[in-house]
């Protein structure tokens, strides 16, 4: 399963064996959910949303330390 991730303004193609949820992806890239907003194909989604083949996931950091 392939999808696009835009994180810190960098765009990458990721390939995974199984479908992940947003929460699982955030755990994977070590981003705490409470500090980010996630868009899937341009729409803000919840942590339980499943990432599918061809999706574009944007990780927007909204909270920084301090």
């Amino acid at each position: 399963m392939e999808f696009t991730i835009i994180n810190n303004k960098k765009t990458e193609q990721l390939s995974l064996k199984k479908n992940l949820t947003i929460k699982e992806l955030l755990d994977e890239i070590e981003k705490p959910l409470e500090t980010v907003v996630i868009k899937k194909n341009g729409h803000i989604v919840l942590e339980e949303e499943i990432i599918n083949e061809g999706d574009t996931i944007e990780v927007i950091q909204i909270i920084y330390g301090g």
Partner: protein
Amino acid sequence: MNCTKCGKKEVMIEKKHSGQRLCPECFISGIEQKVLKDIRKYDLIEKGDRVMVALSGGKDSVMLLDILTSLQDRGIIDMMAVTIDEGIHGYRKDGVKIAAEHAQRLGIEHRVVSFKEYFNISLDEIMALPSPRGACTYCGVFRRWLINRTAREMGATKIATGHNLDDETQSIMMNYLEGNIENLTRLGPRSHPKSDKFIVKIKPLGEIPEREVGLYVVAKGLKVHFDGCPYSRESFRAEIGEIIKNLSKKHPTIMYSTLRGFDKIKNALKKEHSRNFTMENCIKCGEPSAQELCRACVFCQELEKKKTR
């Protein structure tokens, strides 16, 4: 599960403290109503006020500007904005640009004022001097001085800042843990200044969690400077913020209960711990001060000595 309010399928937030699941439209209108309700509840704004927004270009101040615009559009207030340039390389420039764009878009008067211009030193230059105090200490004092002075020059009757629920909870905990009980008595949604030269400060976002502020600006597509101040990471506030954020994961209502608990003891604290003093004018800059010299001028003198060492 669909939006709890309108039934739409596109849900963007689940509010853990209330169990509500909301679509973008219901989330945005809910936030706007909550802020406007708090403005009425805490008597933050009166008709005819000239409100100066402290506009950094970050998410909090941009959201505040966006919501207050509705009051300007209805002819209730006049708005203006100030942006403080502390002189932090690689950080402040983007925020100043975004702030200016918003002000121009809304057609409001906007001033950018810098530490360098008023105090003859930037924050970066301060931090390069030998054994400085914490960056936030200088920044807080100089910023408050500049914002108040500019508000008076611009004829503002209120200064609106974008402090959110996380900021307020952190302030309560920080002051309590450091034993600064007198500072605690001054926290709250509006200031009650002891001098006419201090413009009343209001915090309309004081009951909105920081994450919801972030969600609001993203959902509304507002251009915002998302970046952390390089100096703030070392601060005590950042340490406390981390603790509260971790606690909030298991206890999603903890910030609200901290604020509510504080509301209950605030009057008692004020009675017991408010210091009575007369506010005079600083002999150097003329700004109101309880001492001969205000803190900004004390810091300036201290920095001058460090520079010549």
